[in-house]
């Protein structure tokens, strides 16, 4: 049985391409330096090390982006990505918020990952991912720069997601021509997937229509130690210790991992039976140690009669969707594209 800090480098090098291994190992080691044992976080160093990219109103490969301040009070920024159109290959500076012209334009509200603590909407890896989503789904992508832990605990990230959802839903320029409504999807990876779920819950309660939820390696957990956690601890870039740290940083002080934010179908969770929850696409990496929680999430949805499609990528590790150099990446991107276009 692997101890948390026993490092099994050879195994994970076999299953991912070398450049992916370099990228994720780099993150892993850098993140190790940032987390302090007392639960505080070296935010300055984190921001210094994070590779960021500016928005670019000039289209690159048919996608342009610009940042918008959605809420002054919380300094909530979002980066909007839009596809260029045949009629408008070069957007006009005064018209970046020009109304979408197609009959149906999916608007994907994206929550980046980072275990509630790392990364930003303008992190290079997420800027790249969002651009891909635009091209893939012919969608507008709104990447939310939510407040992070440990400085901002639950429910700040959900509150920011909710603020962003309301904002998106109320933009006339995002309404599809067909029905003058904004066609909204929620998406996120890791903690972003968790946020997507909870924002979807709030949306249902408030009557905002969500067409679908895309959860990439969503971050869930619980008090119990599951079989996958024990088996995979420390093997593929992630340890139980670091997972515990991030939950302690995000959840309210004194709460354990059976808090519904972490464990939505656990002892403190609620059943979604009878609720009109959006259809979900859940991607689980077979080498992710928290997969048992992710699979439990899928079961929870199914038991409540909700529509959910599980994509279990056996040999995939965390972060496989960051670089397009493996077949899991392409499989998942295809599925996402189908998931989003099936409402057209």
């Amino acid at each position: 049985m692997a101890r948390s800090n026993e490092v099994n480098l050879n195994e994970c090098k076999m299953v991912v391409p070398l450049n992916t291994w370099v990228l994720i190992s780099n993150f892993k080691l850098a993140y190790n330096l940032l987390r302090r044992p007392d639960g505080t976080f070296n935010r300055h160093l984190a921001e210094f090390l994070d590779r960021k990219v500016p928005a670019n109103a000039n289209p690159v490969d048919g996608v342009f982006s610009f940042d918008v301040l959605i809420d002054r009070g919380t300094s909530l920024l979002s980066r909007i990505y839009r596809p260029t159109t045949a009629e408008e290959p070069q957007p006009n500076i005064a018209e970046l918020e020009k109304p979408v012209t197609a009959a149906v334009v999916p608007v994907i509200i994206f929550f980046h990952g980072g275990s509630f603590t790392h990364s930003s909407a303008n992190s290079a890896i997420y800027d790249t991912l969002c651009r891909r989503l635009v091209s893939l789904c012919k969608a507008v992508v709104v990447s939310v720069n939510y407040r992070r832990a440990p400085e901002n605990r639950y429910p700040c990230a959900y509150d920011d997601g909710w603020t962003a959802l309301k904002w998106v839903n109320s933009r006339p320029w995002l309404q599809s021509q067909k029905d003058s409504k904004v066609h909204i999807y929620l998406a996120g990876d890791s903690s972003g997937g968790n946020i997507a779920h909870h924002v979807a819950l709030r949306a249902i309660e408030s009557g905002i229509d969500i067409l679908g939820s895309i959860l990439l390696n969503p971050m869930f957990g619980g008090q119990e130690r599951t079989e996958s956690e024990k088996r995979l601890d420390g093997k593929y870039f992630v340890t139980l210790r670091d997972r515990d740290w991030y939950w302690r940083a995000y959840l309210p002080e004194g709460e354990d991992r059976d808090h519904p934010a972490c464990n939505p179908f656990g002892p403190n969770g609620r059943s979604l039976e009878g609720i009109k929850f959006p259809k979900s696409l859940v991607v689980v990496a077979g080498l992710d140690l928290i997969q048992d929680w992710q699979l439990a999430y899928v079961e929870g949805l199914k038991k409540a009669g909700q529509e959910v499609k599980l994509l279990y990528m056996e040999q995939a590790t965390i972060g496989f969707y960051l670089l397009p150099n493996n077949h899991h990446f392409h499989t998942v991107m295809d599925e996402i594209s189908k998931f989003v276009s099936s409402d057209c």
Partner: protein
Amino acid sequence: MVLYDSATLGGSCSGSSSSSSSSKPPPLQQRQQKQQDIDGFLAGAGYRVRSSELRKVAQRLERLETAMVNSPADLSQLASDTIHYNPSDLASWVDSLLSELTQPPTCPSEFIMDPVSNQTVVSDAWTTAEPHMPQVHQNISYEQQSLNNQLTVVPAMEEDSGIRLVHMLMTCAECVQRGDFSLATSCLEDMQGLLTRVNTVCGIGKVAGHFIDALSRRIFQGIGGGSVNGGSAYENELLYHHFYEACPYLKFAHFTANQAILEAFDGHDCVHVVDFNLMHGLQWPALIQALALRPGGPPLLRLTGIGPPSPDGRDSLREIGLRLAELARSVNVRFAFRGVAASRLEDVKPWMLQVNPKESVAVNSIMQLHRLLGSDPNRNSPIETVLSWIRSLNPKIMTVVEQEANHNQPGFLDRFTEALHYYSTMFDSLEACTVQPNKALAEIYIQREIANVVSCEGSARVERHEPLSKWRTRLSGAGFRPLHLGSNAYKQASMLLTLFSAEGYSVEENDGCLTLGWHSRPLIAASAWQAVSDGTADFPA
């Protein structure tokens, strides 16, 4: 108000990528990456690693992990104490960490602002164990950041009038570029009318008003512009001082430059700082105090301050010098001051600075180099002349702070658009300041810049801001190489922000340089340079 980033959208073609595959950088960057065999996927994630070195970097990462696992040290403490440089260069970052883990932690000198006394204090860190300077990694920057990449951040539109104002400003500017002054004039009238219906106290209304004024000036007075910077030296200094107080841009500039200069002077006993624009000498008390507290004692410090001649017989440069000397005396730093009066930087000759060959020299330029970019086809370009004599001084360091904007493009509409974005963001950030009269006078300071960018041409247009990417090319070509600003400078700058300013400001690391911006749009960039010692210019890779 919504304003988006211009990035030369308004008119001329700006080289957007024509490639068909996923997310590739603009063509020039691509070619450079290919030439240097840089892994394209990692580049997309912000890291520069040669494909041929991937395996080596992977091995180093493995070693680093093992070292981290086996290290008895508290890793997070180690991380805090270490100075990190240029994280994009993954190989060297990993190496520097590896060497940290195998030798005692460094104790860098640090500047901190004491929130109580508002004075800079040097941190205790280096009064403990034997301090030694952290490794400085001299990495040449391979990439050329696309000039098209600029940040766009704006609050959501509050009223339609705002959008219309922006439209009309653009239309007017376009008319001006085309030479259609009668249409431009009627645009102006429409805009004046619209202004009365828009809130001009803040937001788009306020900055639009300044741009409308600047356009009027251009249309009616011609591009000689009258004397936009017509204020006396005294007025300029006053406005500058209030701009310094009202927002953190100049404090960041001074702070970051001082940190770099302090590090460069480590171990040197005779040091000479050349300040390209002394003003009230606001930058120097902090450096004097930090030098006073240096272990091993302060060096002999000479300061040469360059500034415009005083009209009324006062020698204001000397007065500032005397005050600084007084301060230096009070902290036991041997100090000598010399003032060099010149109306233009290009009129300064190196012999006026009287640099002693035994001294270590620091050249400090806060928003001055761009003034040398005005072109006169009949003369040698002033920037080249000045950079060349700076180089001849063989300075230990040259600190350069410039506005992070592309206000020197040849096309008027492009410049106008860029300025509209830049200054609305800057005005937006000023809203966070509530202290008067700082804020009002700071606005006038900025307004003068706007007027110069928009309504002047030729030698009258001195506000020729260029972005960091252009300065990198220019300085590399002139025989300088970058000295990277590290995580300690980053951290100090971030802390400075929390002490002094509102939420919304952000410091970012950009390939060894630091930028300060508002809501993720960088507005000012600080960098440090050293002359390449072999006497030949360094061509950009």
